[in-house]
């Protein structure tokens, strides 16, 4: 793999992704919501047992769980499907570049665009929190780091959608369905499974981490409070089972989601005849 070629494609993809008005709309909507949360000091909307900055940040986690997957999935889903639909992908593949350079160039470009949009959102939200006289820079940066990992995991799933679809509109629709599944049906499914099958905490924990959004939620809450007892039996199980290794496990799981997502997407894209 030649990294100068990869970077050339990444730069073009970055410019293309930065033109995506939805990306900026989501980023600014998140920032606006975060500002509102910090200014209003939504103490009662936070997680029980959290105080001050913790309450604001815990409210932010809920906002992040909605916005970040939507951003990652929509940017990823459009990355290859849009080019394929326009015909630019075929022309690009006909140039002296490898499929790996094209694919990972697009991943890097889309990833940088996503990081830029999130940095804007986090920057504005951070200003709001600081101006409210409340803040914990370390916890805030940990939350930002987990958010970037969640964004990459979502981007990976978005790329899988993109490799499997031929039209931009189809990819966008599929991304929306996957987002609904992860955000809403994942939670509902878990509640349903718990009520129907009464799984053990360990089984429930495995079911929980099968959804990257839940992994992010565990990691974010843990980073704010260094305990998961606010999340009930599963949180307590995870805390007592893994102890201080828990943040590394959760970080690893989020990273694995991203790596596996991009890996599957590349395997599909790399099939001969897939243009």
């Amino acid at each position, binding site marked *: 793999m030649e990294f*100068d*070629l990869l970077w*050339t494609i990444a730069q073009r993809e970055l410019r293309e992704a930065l033109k995506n008005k939805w990306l900026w709309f989501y980023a600014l909507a998140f920032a606006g919501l975060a500002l509102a949360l910090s200014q209003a000091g939504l103490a009662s909307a936070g997680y029980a047992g959290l105080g001050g900055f913790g309450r604001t940040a815990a409210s932010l986690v809920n906002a992040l769980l909605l916005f970040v997957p939507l951003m990652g999935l929509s940017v990823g889903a459009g990355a290859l499907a849009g080019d394929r639909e326009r015909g*630019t992908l075929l022309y690009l593949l*006909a*140039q*002296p570049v*490898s499929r790996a350079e094209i694919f990972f160039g697009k991943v890097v470009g889309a990833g940088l665009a996503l990081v830029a949009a999130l940095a804007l959102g986090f920057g504005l939200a951070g200003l709001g929190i600081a101006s409210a006289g409340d803040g914990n820079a370390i916890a805030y940066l940990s939350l930002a780091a987990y958010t970037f990992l969640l964004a990459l995991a979502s981007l990976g799933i978005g790329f899988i959608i993109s490799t499997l679809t031929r039209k931009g509109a189809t990819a966008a629709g599929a991304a929306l369905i996957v987002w609904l599944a992860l955000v809403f049906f994942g939670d509902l499914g878990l509640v349903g499974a718990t009520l129907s099958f009464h799984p053990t905490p360990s089984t429930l924990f495995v079911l929980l981490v099968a959804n990257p959004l839940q992994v992010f939620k565990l990691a974010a809450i843990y980073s704010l409070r260094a305990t998961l007892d606010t999340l009930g039996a599963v949180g307590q199980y995870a805390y007592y089972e893994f102890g201080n290794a828990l943040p590394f496990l959760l970080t690893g799981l989020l990273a694995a989601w991203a790596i596996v997502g991009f890996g599957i997407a590349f395997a599909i894209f790399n099939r*001969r*005849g897939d243009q």
Partner: protein
Amino acid sequence: MSRDKISVRVNNFTKQYGKVVALEGVSFSVQPGQALALWGPNGAGKTTLLKAMLGLIDFKGKIEIEGCDVQRAGKQARRQIGYVPQEAIFYDLSVRATLEFYARLKKVGAELASVQHARVTSLIQRVGLADHAHKPVPALSGGLKQRLALAVALLADPPVLLLDEPTANLDAKARSDYLSLLAALHHEGKTILFASHRIEEVETLADQVLMLEHGKLTETISPEELRARLSSNIEMVLWVNEAQRAHAKNCLTEKGLDAHLNGRGTVVVRIQSQQKMRALNLLNEAGVSVQNFEIESLAG
């Protein structure tokens, strides 16, 4: 230029889409500086063969471009190729920015920016895009976009050009100008392989014509021979009631005639000029009412 070397070698090429065999057992070679036309009806496999040469599809057999196996070293093979598609689609950039983007991908002037700038400028002038260099590509006409595609193809000065029906979407003036550009490149010694169904393209450019039919390479002939064959062939376009169109097509094909339905709702049959009445009589006997017909010469 050397004539003992082989620029493009295709050996026992076979491509299947599921159970459908698109091309089978195709073998040929192209010497440096030679121009070969791939001739055949729609669906004969011309574009499939070009895509395979670019390493874009999987296939059985072997294709080498300047000694590079496209299946084992696709990127190296593509470095030897300038490709012009039937209709090039570009990103939303200016003409110059488009050329600079592809120049970076082809590593033109990778060490020195001024080399890249000079190459891009000279190609913009050569293909006649100097007045459009700063225009966004989507604002260009089809003819100018094809010129840009040719400029992109020539960036790294590759020895081989692959062209997929390069003038299919151009008007008469643009076609003539474009063919002049390609003829000059052929004269300069570029190896050119192009898919075509236009006799004027073949007569202007090709040294030899590869005839593709029913998924096979049937023969290699000269452009003059192709012209002679086409001059006795015509295409009859028959207007038939919609309910009878499929029946009409089947009647003709069952009797060995080359007939198909086209997108405009007519039945098209390719026959020798003296067989016009045979086609009409066959349809009459089958109870098909022909409302009108036109005759087009295939010789252009």
